[in-house]
């Protein structure tokens, strides 16, 4: 949809390459290791790399101690679901890291965290639009407007102007 493609707050991801400026490289994965990032990891000497596998950012104390331990001249590579990427990025920024040091790998397409603009509920792993809000039960159109702070896309009730207008579920990209 052309109108959606124009929304500039939606992040554009590129496959991370080695950060040539950095002296130390920290890799953070959600669950299993991403093959392409693993190749980057394997190409580094053992003295200049560190790895952190997390199921979610619930295990934040482990990550926080890694982020605080590393030298200033470090780079961070993150792979996982999109919401996970931004949670890790926000955690790193709280520890004083800057965006220039943080490289987010392209996430799995078609899974979004959604922020309900009516009741402020967050829904994880949303695959289809419209989605029924778990907080207020409204059918939400998932838009491409993205918040880095929430790591989420905005959802707005779809059939307000015409209650009969409830389109078929469409997979998110």
């Amino acid at each position, binding site marked *: 949809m052309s109108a959606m493609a124009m929304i500039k707050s939606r992040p554009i991801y590129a496959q991370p390459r080695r950060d040539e400026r950095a002296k130390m490289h920290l890799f953070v994965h959600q669950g299993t290791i991403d093959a392409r990032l693993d190749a980057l990891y394997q190409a580094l000497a053992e003295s200049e790399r560190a790895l952190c596998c997390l199921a979610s950012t619930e295990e934040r104390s482990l990550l926080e101690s890694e982020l605080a331990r590393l030298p200033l001249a470090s780079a961070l590579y993150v792979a996982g679901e999109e919401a996970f990427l931004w949670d890790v990025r926000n955690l790193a920024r709280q520890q004083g890291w800057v965006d220039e040091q943080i490289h987010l790998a392209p996430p799995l397409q078609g899974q979004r965290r959604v922020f309900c603009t009516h009741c402020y509920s967050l829904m994880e792993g949303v695959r289809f639009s419209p989605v029924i809000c778990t907080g207020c039960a409204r059918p939400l159109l998932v838009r491409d407007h993205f918040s880095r*702070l929430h790591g989420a896309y905005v959802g707005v009730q779809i059939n307000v102007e015409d209650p009969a207008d409830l389109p078929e579920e469409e997979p998110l990209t």
Partner: protein
Amino acid sequence: MRIAPKAIQTFRDDFTYSNSPGAIARFPFPFPEDEYRYSVNIEPHLTPGPEGSVYEHLFDIDEHYLSEMAERNLVLQENPKRCLAMPHMDLACWDMIERVMVAFATDYPEYFALTREGNHWIWENKLLNQRDEFTFGDSSTLPLPPMEYIGRQVQGDFALLDQREGDLFMDAGIVTCPADWSLAFDAGMSFSEWHGPVPLAHEMGVFDRALKYLVAIPVGRPVRRLNWTLTINARMDTSPETYPAWGMDRASVTPDNVGEKVYLRVELQVLDRMPRSNALMFSIRTYLISMQDLVTRPDWAKRLHRVMKTLPPELVEYKGLSRFHPTLVQWLAQFDPAN
């Protein structure tokens, strides 16, 4: 002659809001040309502007003051999160308190008074029948958090933009009458991010140029611009949060009720550097006028017809006008001799 604030009218339910002839005469009609175009339409907000105009003072107080403060109270009662301030914005909130209070006491001495002895301040708001003593800079001495405290006394929405890394961030605000944007969702966004949904302008480089200009605004040299959209009924709170309560109004426009149902909504946006925090204050003062009041000015009626007729489809969609735009254009045609 300034218009004295009148008794409370409503922006919801029975919609008793109305404009006096004086308010119509000073309405900030936003279209300088027959065709609407995006531009970086920013100009210095030099005060005093023309006497009695909305540009006369830094903040414009008009006959709707009490109504808008009552409406703001209703919105905040329903959803306190319509006002937020991140902890690092405390000093910027105090900058705003000083700017509003000093300007109000100077520009509207019949309604507001400020006494300052060092950091001990006494503030009187005679319109809201309020008198407060507090220590400037000490948020614990105010009855409310600083952003909510001052925001409940001034017409229009406010955002305080933190400036860092050559960019502006939406880190505090009180937003109860927005044209369809959510402070809770947009919180913390950079300038280009919160304008993400706006079509066309990014490609034209409008936001890059505007940002370079805005980060260089010095203390005491505010700038302003007008923005506009259309609203059905005199509803101030057209937020995404409450969209389920007002979205269906867009389907209620008929050729017979355009004059009373459709309102031109104009935002007088002012950007002003906050001296202590280096934040930028973004005030969005909203004016509403019904089509039937607007067409009492033949020049406005004719111009609005031409603007609506030539509005790019992307903008019709983005501004949420699709359902009633053709009906409106047809109705306005009667005021344009070229048709």
